């Protein structure tokens, strides 16, 4: 009963049942310093609730913690993808000019692909497609210039429509 009053959880709870707890876990620090070390069921319960908290904390996105730029960058899909050569990504068509499809896949630039002969009419604005990337930005240094000339475009090969079948390619399109 002492355990239940402190932790607000019924004594008969098991590990398999999900606990409904608020995100603020301040009661633990208040209790730990004032009491003698727990034994028996109380110790086991405390250990178990620790594991539960750690597991749950990873599942729930913690909106209160401000992540640093370095951490955001390191875990971003663009960096996790690595070199762009021959990576399969998902893009979305945002503009169409007759047979040219302008596809945005989450990088700095979009890519422009020709409408394929197969299922050509299904490629409309807002459709998600699969691409094989070749380069994130098309640049080249020409003779006589100090800096590279950039085409302000990425380079990719259109593989086909995004169907709900097989191994998901690296999802780079962020849902906003």
């Amino acid at each position: 009963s002492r355990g239940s009053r402190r932790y607000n959880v019924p004594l008969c709870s098991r590990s398999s049942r999900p606990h409904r707890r608020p995100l603020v876990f301040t009661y633990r620090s208040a209790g730990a310093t004032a009491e003698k070390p727990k034994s028996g069921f109380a110790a086991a319960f405390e250990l178990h609730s620790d594991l539960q908290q750690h597991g749950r904390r990873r599942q729930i996105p913690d909106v209160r913690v401000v992540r640093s730029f370095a951490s955001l960058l390191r875990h971003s899909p663009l960096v996790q993808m690595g070199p762009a050569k021959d990576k399969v990504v998902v893009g979305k068509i945002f503009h169409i000019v007759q047979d040219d499809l302008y596809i945005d896949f989450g990088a700095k630039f979009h890519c422009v692909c020709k409408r394929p002969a197969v299922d050509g009419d299904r490629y409309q604005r807002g459709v998600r497609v699969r691409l094989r990337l070749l380069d994130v930005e098309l640049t080249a240094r020409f003779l006589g210039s100090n800096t590279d000339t950039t085409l302000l475009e990425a380079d990719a090969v259109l593989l086909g429509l995004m169907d709900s079948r097989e191994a998901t390619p690296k999802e780079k399109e962020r849902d906003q």
Partner: protein
Amino acid sequence: MAAGAFLKALSGLNCPRLLPVLASRLSNRGYVNGQLYSTAAVAQTMTSSDSLSGNNKVLTEPLKHPDFFHLSELFSLKDLFEARVHLGHKKGCRHRLMEPYLFGCRLEQDIIDLDQTMELLQQALNFTAHVAYRGGVILFVSRRRQFCHLVECTAQDCGEYAHTRYWRGGLLTNAPIQYGPGVRLPDLIIFLSTLNNVFQQHVAIRDAAKMNIPTVGVVDSNCNPSLVTFPIPGNDDSPSSVELYCKLFKMTINRAKDKRKQMNLLYGVKGSSS
């Protein structure tokens, strides 16, 4: 003699309105009671200009706070990151003067340091807000055809001006001839992209510096930030980042103008909003 010294001391202060009033009063009196009269004249002009002090309160109150318009709540690091503001061009396109603003280079693509961008964006938005608060004319300039409609709509929504077409030679430097005498030049120019269509620096940056017009500009890793008064290092090529900038500038300017109306009502100054 005392009056002359007093006037000289006053001219050191920046109150042009008081000087002619005091000069006329002091010249009417004699020099016998010069000092007494001068102090009495000051006391009278200070208390009689109530409308003047109200006007000054409206103008000086925002300058006492570092973030009077609470612009830091408009954006966060996560918003900038999700709008892809940190992505720069390839290493070969890099401008040497942008190197202090870069976080690093990953697989030949420059990454812009968003911590610096946050501070510089805050300063730029704060300056824009103060200019809009004081009724300044703001001009949006961008030569990216992909975003020219967006920039023009943004300018229209906040009641300011935009120039997203070919920039003729003397628009700022030769304005009285090209537009007519007595034309008012912009008080702030905001560049959503500092390059023109052939990847050279936009002429308006140099011309604004010549005409003493402050500039706020989004500088990508291939731009020259040196002449821009408030550079904002960031991506200027992705639609998501340009939409974010336009949204922030629009909200800033509208907030500043609303605040001005509110302050005018608060301090009871009528008909002074421009």
